């Protein structure tokens, strides 16, 4: 049954690697189970080692899965898809390197999608560290993959401003007061992308990608609820559950963690097959995720078995 799910490339070496690492992890879990049954403590460094192997093995010997977009993700995708070319989309990169592995894939996927559709994209960030990451993304995705797009016409990078919520509180009525120029010192008035845009009210879609504070919650409170512009979000898995109360009224959709990114990527690749070669980091990450999840579930089961056995022993006494 497992074989059917793993789309195995015809490289014998990685097949062997996969089998060996799976066997190793299985044997190790069995060992932990036996130790736990004997009521012996397992040092947590061994637990650490296991999770390292469970994550590292599928990176070396990739296992890939198919994903199907869930409704909450598809809503964001469909919104980007349904807007006519030339729509103004604001993408906020509100994250730092700490969360980047999780949300960068969705930031890339959404940027790609918007630019493929011909939307005019406004990039900004509320995190100082976000600007440096934004620079990297722009170099890689925007300038690297869409060289025909012009800065200030098809996209613009506003960069970072200090002040968290207060930045949002200003741009909700006036972009130019907060951002007299873009990140390179070009006045907004001289860019065509800002011709018809005075405030957040004049945008067609706002997507905030974040995972901390300030992040999506601040965007909802300070911008989303105040302007009549649809708002989507992509967030780190840590904060996703607490944003559900905003869906679907205050947020049109939500991408949660790497799975959200993987679902978005799968939808994107289905619609635009030529984008597949640009990379699908979210989908690739689901391999290690799956193995790590299985190991963690195994830990929970083992922990509970040993808990019940020790409790029964105590009762017998």
């Amino acid at each position, binding site marked *: 049954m497992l074989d059917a799910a793993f789309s195995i490339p015809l490289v014998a070496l990685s097949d062997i690697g996969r089998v060996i690492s799976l066997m190793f992890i299985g044997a190790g879990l069995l060992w932990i189970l036996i130790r736990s049954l004997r009521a012996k403590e397992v040092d947590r460094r061994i637990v650490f080692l296991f999770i390292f192997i469970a994550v590292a093995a599928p990176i070396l010997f990739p296992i890939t899965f198919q994903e199907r977009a869930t409704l909450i993700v598809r809503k964001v995708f469909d919104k980007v898809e349904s807007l006519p070319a030339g729509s103004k989309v604001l993408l906020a990169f509100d994250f730092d390197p700490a969360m980047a592995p999780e949300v960068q894939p969705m930031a890339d996927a959404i940027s790609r999608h918007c630019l493929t559709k011909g939307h005019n994209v406004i990039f900004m960030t509320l995190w100082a560290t976000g600007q440096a990451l934004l620079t990297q993304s722009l170099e890689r995705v925007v300038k690297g993959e869409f060289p025909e797009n012009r800065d200030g016409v098809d996209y613009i990078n506003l960069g970072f401003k200090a*002040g968290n919520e207060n930045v949002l509180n200003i741009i909700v009525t006036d972009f130019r007061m907060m951002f007299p120029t873009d990140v390179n010192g070009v006045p907004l008035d001289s860019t065509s992308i800002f011709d018809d845009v005075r405030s957040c009210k004049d945008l067609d879609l706002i997507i905030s990608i974040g995972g901390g504070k300030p992040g999506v919650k601040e965007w909802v409170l300070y911008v989303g609820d105040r302007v009549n512009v649809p708002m989507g979000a992509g967030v780190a898995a840590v904060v996703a559950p607490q944003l559900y109360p905003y869906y679907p009224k205050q947020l049109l959709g939500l991408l949660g963690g790497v799975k959200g990114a993987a679902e978005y990527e799968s939808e994107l690749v289905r619609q635009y097959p030529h984008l597949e070669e640009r990379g699908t980091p979210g989908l690739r990450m689901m391999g290690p995720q799956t193995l790590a999840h299985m190991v963690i579930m195994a830990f929970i089961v083992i922990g509970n078995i040993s808990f019940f056995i020790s409790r029964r022993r105590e009762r017998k006494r």
Partner: protein
Amino acid sequence: MKRQVPIIITFLIGMIMIFSFFIPPLEGLEQTCSLFFDVIAVFAFFLGGGNLMRIHVNKLRRRKKDWGFSIVTLGGFFIMLAAGLLKIGNPGGIAASPTTEGSLLQEIFTYVFLPLQSTMYALLAFFVASASYRAFRAKNREATILLIAAFVILLGRTPFGMLLTGWIPESFSVLQVPNMAIWIMNSPNLAGQRAIMIGIGLGVISMSLRLILGIERTYLGDESA
């Protein structure tokens, strides 16, 4: 002077922020206050840097434990500060973005800051694993509910869940584990989160009111200093 003025400032600014929400002509004032805040926020960064310098210089001077590492901190601080404030190596000169690709600031960010911070957070993966092994036990009814919910989500968020329950026909699709996970997120999770959100929201609202009215003064610190 030391206590009254701050309370008056808090009251005035708080009131401006509240009333401008309802009275459009005050909006400009609110915006200006927000912009003031943004500028002060930068001074708070400077304060952070100043504090850091003070602490580590003190540590060095008094040869406290681990003072050697203070040299590392100060060294990193000054190199980064010079790279940032002077825009060293920035191909676009003074007008360009400080994070232009190729500038020293961006290089240090990419090769030093980024690996450090992201690895620190990556440590959490290990602690999640050890917590699930050690602490996730069905000790009582509440803990059991928590455990089951977590298990369903864990299973449902990976392709493995579909593998196990994919055979369940479409008309009973809610019993497929991934769909169960979606349902839990959309219904009970939403309800619980909303209850917490309303509770915390009320706490924030009530505390804000107390701060503006000057009833709550803890943030001002002690009376004498």
